[in-house]
């Protein structure tokens, strides 16, 4: 039972971490190599694609903007650039085309790199063909500027406070309602056991007399 409990707790914690890791914004320092668009037909990876551009009609497939970039360690990273609109995650991003124009404007070559910060959410996964969604780009001084994730700090602290409060509420509820109930149940069960013991003694006495065996 203990293993089951800890496995469940671990799974819940893992999904919470994955959820936050996917949805909270992160910043990368990259060099934009190119921008392009291609048609996508989301299939089993539908979850990781946005919906149709805000205001457009939904179709089977659509064109999606992409931003090709090279990270500071020289490895590639490709971002998609899609509206989140009014849906999840709540970035309220409607300026996809403007962002694509800005990204194209910040293109640079390996010889004369222009480093840019890309704020994005989501994951890159080659097996599922999913891409992080870029929400903002802006030029930075160099490949190793430090940026403090204030937004994430505030969100995580608020979340921790809410969780703590909920935990306290559950604890208080338990002390006031469930523990007394359990006590009652335990007492009731004790009485049941006493009865059973007494009945058992009587029964064994009866059978003992019947069969003629003495304890």
């Amino acid at each position, binding site marked *: 039972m203990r293993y089951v409990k800890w496995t469940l707790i671990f799974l819940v914690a893992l999904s919470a971490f994955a959820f936050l890791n996917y949805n909270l914004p992160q910043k990368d320092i990259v060099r934009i190599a190119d921008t392009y668009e291609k048609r996508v037909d989301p299939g089993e990876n539908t979850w990781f694609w946005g919906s149709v551009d805000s*205001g457009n009609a939904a179709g089977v497939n659509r064109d999606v903007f992409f931003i090709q970039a090279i990270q500071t360690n020289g490895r590639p990273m490709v971002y998609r650039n899609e509206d989140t*609109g*009014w*849906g999840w995650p*709540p*970035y*309220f*991003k409607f*300026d996809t085309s*403007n962002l694509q124009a800005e990204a194209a404007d910040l293109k640079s070559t390996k010889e004369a790199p222009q480093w840019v910060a890309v704020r994005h959410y989501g994951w890159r996964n080659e097996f599922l063909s999913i891409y992080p969604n870029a929400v903002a780009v802006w030029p930075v001084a160099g490949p190793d500027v430090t940026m403090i994730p204030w937004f994430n700090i505030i969100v995580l602290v608020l979340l921790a406070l809410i969780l703590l409060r909920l935990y306290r509420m559950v604890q208080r509820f338990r002390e006031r309602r469930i523990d007394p109930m359990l006590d009652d149940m335990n007492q009731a069960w004790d009485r049941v056991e006493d009865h059973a013991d007494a009945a058992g003694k009587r029964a064994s006495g009866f059978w003992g007399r019947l069969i003629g065996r003495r304890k």
Partner: protein
Amino acid sequence: MIAGIRLFVIAFVVLSVIYVYLSIRQRWQARNELEAEFDAGGVEGDRDTYIEEGMREYQSSLRRKLILGVYVVPLLVVATLIYVMNYM
């Protein structure tokens, strides 16, 4: 825009539930405080009239109006997000 309207309707319903819960709870708390205040002694007059008057005061208090923040704060957050994301 339809998606936006849908979001606002859902948010309004959810926030209304929270609003009603908080206002009931806070009213109950205010009454409890008044009762405790009277029972602690040192207050002249009838207990019921004292509590009734206190509740009338609560009805027009800033403390009660602060619960409207349940609607105002998310609205401000969304407005700020839209501005920061798209116009900054």
